[in-house]
């Protein structure tokens, strides 16, 4: 069956010091085993995206980062798009922040779906005072770090796909337990990408009470590999670096914050038992 998807979009992006504005309209066709994508001539009315908020967020981040830290990479963007597939038509708008903040030999990686700077400020303060690398046997994950871990815990920790408007084919994303097997929805981050099945908006089930006395991992220092995390931790007024292997999730609690990991993850505070990496 031939399926034709069209997308009209506009993005304003601040990449380090450069502001980039991109307007695009494209079509993706799936016909049997062949996927093809190309720009299209006819372009609908593109949504308005104001650069002012992007610039303000980027300037704010730039002001926060001071020596001995350096801003290795900054992407701040806002985009809006209109999608069509058959007789379905829908639209969305998204904000994204990706930061790489360096203090050799470490770098902190931050991914956000809003322009609030509170999280960034907290991480920057802790990173500036982190001195040592320490092992931990039990740790608390901040909602942001827990969200990043959720896609790596599929099948081992109970979680839900949270209900939301449409997936990459315009279908409703239903609330349901995440289970083994093929996810019902399609993820299409770009019209140039072949859509793939994915669980959307992962939302961890509450599990036991969070112990708030444990040291808290507040940021990632590297992408998560399997179940190994390099993290920046806070323990009261101290900050340190740790590498942990997740042995067992002993407590979890979802939060309302949403993070742009995989096809979306809600914040997930967690307590973990760790093997020393």
């Amino acid at each position, binding site marked *: 069956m031939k399926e034709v998807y069209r997308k009209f979009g506009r993005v304003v992006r601040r990449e380090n010091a*450069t*502001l980039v504005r*991109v307007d695009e309209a494209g079509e993706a066709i799936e016909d049997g085993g*062949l*996927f093809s994508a190309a720009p299209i001539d006819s372009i609908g009315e593109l949504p308005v995206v104001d650069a002012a908020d992007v610039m303000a967020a980027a300037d704010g981040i730039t002001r926060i980062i001071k020596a001995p830290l350096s801003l290795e990479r900054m992407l701040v963007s806002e985009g809006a798009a209109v999608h069509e597939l058959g007789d379905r038509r829908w639209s969305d708008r998204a904000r994204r922040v990706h930061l790489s903040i360096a203090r050799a030999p470490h770098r902190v990686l931050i991914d956000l779906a809003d322009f609030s700077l509170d999280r960034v400020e907290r991480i920057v303060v802790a990173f500036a005072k982190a001195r040592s690398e320490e092992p931990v046997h039990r740790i608390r994950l901040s909602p942001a770090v827990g969200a990043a871990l959720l896609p790596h815990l599929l099948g081992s920790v109970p979680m839900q796909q949270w209900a939301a408007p449409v997936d990459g084919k315009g279908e409703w994303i239903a609330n349901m337990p995440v289970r083994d097997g093929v996810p019902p929805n399609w993820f299409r981050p770009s019209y140039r990408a072949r859509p793939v099945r994915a669980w959307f908006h992962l939302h961890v089930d509450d599990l036991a009470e969070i112990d708030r006395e444990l040291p808290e991992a507040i940021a990632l220092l590297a992408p998560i590999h399997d179940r190994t995390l390099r993290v920046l931790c806070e323990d009261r007024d101290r900050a340190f670096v740790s590498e942990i292997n997740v042995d067992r999730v002993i407590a979890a609690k979802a939060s309302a914050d949403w993070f742009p990991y995989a096809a979306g993850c809600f914040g997930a505070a967690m307590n973990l038992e760790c093997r020393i990496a």
Partner: protein
Amino acid sequence: MTADIYAAAVRDEIWIGGSLVESRLSLGEAHHVRGQIVATDRLSDPSLRELCDAEAVRVREIVREIHDARVRIVIRATSDEPLLSTVGIMFGDLSIVTTPQFALGDAAMLRHFWEDGPSPGLRPPSPRKRGEGLRNSTRKERFVAPLPATRGEGGRRRGEGPHQRNLVWRNGTAAILLHEAAGHASEHGHAPLRWPAWLRVHDGAADLLAGVSPHALRRESFRDVPMRRMTNVVVEQRNGPFAEPPEAIEILLIKGGSYEPLTEMVTIDVAVPPMTIRASRDQVAASLIGASGDPIRYPGVICSREGQELFVGSHAPVIVTEGLG
């Protein structure tokens, strides 16, 4: 077309078993205006698309013969670089990226490695049917190591410490080592090191060993911000010492590499024989103990930095290192 406008037509296709499974066309322009880039997927100059489409027809004809691999062809007609066509070829977990003129020979080389099993580099190769890819590389100089290399241990032999290990980088593979240790270091503005006097590493006119950053501003697409990136790394030796090590592991095919700018650590994942090499760039510089011959073309690499993937040509003579592990 002025330097303030970048335009590109790019065709990207994936073929499996001789059948087209994915096809992408990208057209666009980026206008540089007062520190901003305004980009749109419209091309005011149709000649780039015509050039791209004509080249795609030619390249498809060439790769049609490679029907037993996963093949990706990318044709880039841009306003700032010559027409560039690349062919990615994958057999199982072995892959290379090359150019159309060498695609059939390089595919034969890769097929040979794939059919030879996990450590084909440790025994003599069977004669190649098509020999362009490695024509100048191995043959008489090939050393047959007695024990297979294994992932993680890097093929170390009993009684041999990590600092005594000799590696012979054949087939132009040393270009990848120096792409990471010298090329990326220069892109990041890291201070030059004390390199062997016989060694030269250039990207165009840029002397990478002297810490000169590549001159070219490159970008993957019209949506991207251009950066100083390598285009074609050429490693040369001038009267370098060379003695065939009595025992050595031959590096024949690279899986990937990386340079960590915060620690100046180089990591090379070797595909044939499978092993991982991790060292500081100081250690890389100190490990270079000899070289022989003219630069040999390595098929090429896709270099990824800040999410932008670009093809980089790679050439290096046979080089011997000591103590990398």
